Every structure is written in C-alpha cells, then in structure tokens.
C-alpha cells in the first residue's frame, strides 16, 4: 500500500448535491422530449471519474484484477464492461480515464492503490471537475458535426472509440460507447456553455432534455 493520503470526496453528512447542470436547467430551461425530438440530451451526473497514469503493463494487470476491464492499449481506445456502466478510455500514451457509477470510485481507488503498491503510477479523482452529457437520437451525429472539428463519420469513428478534441472552442472528450449513443465528457466549468450550445445546435432537430 502506498503512503498517499486519500479521502472520500462523498461525505457521510447529508449535504444536498446538485448536478453541474442544475443552474443551466433553471436558467435555460429543459425542452421536453416529444415524438418530434430527433436528438435527446441526457446528463449522466455525479459519476466517479478517475485519471490513471503510469506504465501500461503494470496498470493493465491491476485493472483487470480489480475492475475486470482490459486497459485499452491502442490510441483512442474505449473499453466498457458487460453492463456498460464502467469504462476505461485511452487519453494519452500513459494516461487513462476510468468512469464508474457514482460512489464506487473511492473504493476502486483504494483497491487499485493496494494492488499497485510501490509501482510508479498516479490516480487522481477528477469526478468533481467534469460531467458526462449523453446525446442520442437519429440526428445526434448531425449536432456533433456542427460542433466539433473531428470527423465523426461512422467509418472514422466506430463504436469503442473516444477522442479528446475541440467542441465549440471548448475541450471535450467524445466517446462512442454504443451504436446510437455519443457521450461528451465536459469540464464542469464549461457544462453550462456546452449545454446552451447543444440546445441551440439541436433546436432544428427538436432537441429534448431527458432527466
């Protein structure tokens, strides 16, 4: 076990927690999802995000033991577990993003630290700094085409790929976990901006916000 000081960012005390978009819902409203909505936006708030850094071989073994997921070795790789709830994404040759259901991240961090021991690695809980927006519907790709510089055509962006790129001048991680769903991992501080951008860009497709 390493001697790094860790703490659970989720407190025992009953403190009301709001999603990063709580302000945006009040300020910009939430268009209802109707039968005419060809794009649906849904926030997957308060998930557990961990940044894992270190050598691929050591981390791969630890992650397979503790999470049951292989570390994506190829650039732009995204690997999900059978339930689709937990994922590991390649961000850089020595950096990966783990997303697990909210509440699991501290326990996972401790298990990984215990298994990795004195190996050369770093685990940082970034859950408070970013949030996940999910775009689905037949026109989801059209909305992305208007917003990102990256080529999101299915031939270039198959399921199981995730890239960090520019979304409306903001940095975003785009992921494609399933055939008809796109995930945007955005900074918490940019969440309102991205939300309003998506409402504007999706207006012509009757965008609806699911809660």
């Amino acid at each position: 076990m390493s001697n790094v000081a860790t703490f659970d960012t989720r407190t025992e005390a009953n403190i009301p927690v709001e999603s990063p978009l709580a302000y945006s819902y009040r300020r910009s409203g939430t268009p209802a999802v109707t039968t005419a909505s060809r794009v649906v936006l849904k926030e997957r708030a308060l998930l557990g995000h961990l940044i894992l850094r270190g050598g691929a071989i050591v981390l791969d073994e630890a992650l397979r033991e503790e999470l049951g997921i292989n570390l994506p070795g190829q650039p732009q790789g995204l690997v999900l577990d059978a339930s689709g709830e937990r994922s590991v994404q390649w961000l850089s040759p020595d950096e990966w993003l783990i997303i697990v259901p909210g509440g699991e991240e501290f326990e996972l961090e401790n298990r990984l630290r215990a298994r990795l021991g004195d190996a050369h690695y770093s685990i940082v809980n970034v859950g408070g700094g970013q949030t996940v927006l999910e775009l689905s519907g037949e026109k989801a790709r059209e909305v992305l085409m208007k917003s990102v510089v990256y080529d999101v055509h299915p031939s270039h962006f198959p399921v199981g790929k995730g890239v960090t790129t520019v979304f409306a001048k903001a940095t975003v991680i785009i992921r494609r976990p399933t055939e008809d769903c796109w995930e945007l991992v955005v900074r918490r501080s940019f969440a309102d901006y991205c939300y309003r951008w998506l409402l504007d860009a999706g207006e012509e497709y009757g965008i609806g916000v699911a809660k």
Partner: protein
Amino acid sequence: MFYIYCPYCGEHREEEEFHPKGQAHIVRPKEPESCSDEEWGDYLFFRDNPRGIHHELWVHAVGCRKFFNITRHTVTYEILETYKMGEQPSITAETYAPQSSESEAARVAKQAGVRA
C-alpha cells in the same frame, strides 16, 4: 490550416488542437556555470529562422498533450514528417531533395534564411 499527424495519437488531427513551441533539438548546455555570456544568451534567446527545412517542437494541446517534432518547409508550408520526442529527423536540410525542377542556384537561395 494544417492537418497534422500526431505520432502519439496515431492519426491526423486539425491544427486547432495543436500549439507550436518553436525550434526543436535545442540542447541545454551541460554546465551552465561554465558558459560564456554569449553561449548562454545564444542558448536562451537566439533561434534559427531558416528558409526551407525547419525542425519544430509542437504540442498536441487538446488531444494527448504530448510534445513531438515536426519537420516543416517554411517556404511551401509542407509538413514533411512528424516524429516523437527523443527521435532524430529522417529529413534534414542536407538530405532534402525537392521535387520541383528549379535551378540549383534558386534552390540554394531559398534554403539560406537566418541561422542563429
């Protein structure tokens, strides 16, 4: 706009995701204390401004956030190759052979530029 191949991401990305960081392969003097003022000043402040082949340091700022090198032709803006940190370029001003049929004198004139 450049369409730049990131050697770490393994694919071409838009220039918007990158930042240029100036001349590549600048070696820090091993013993700064024993440098003359002129040597240290050259190391800190003076950079090549060649006409022709230039090796540059770039960072994939929005993507993988890794530094890498680009060999670029400053006249045609053509990116000839990109390679990882620690590697040496395969194309240099000495080995580069342009495809065009211009005269040798014109080619040499274009390759001069300013060397620090």
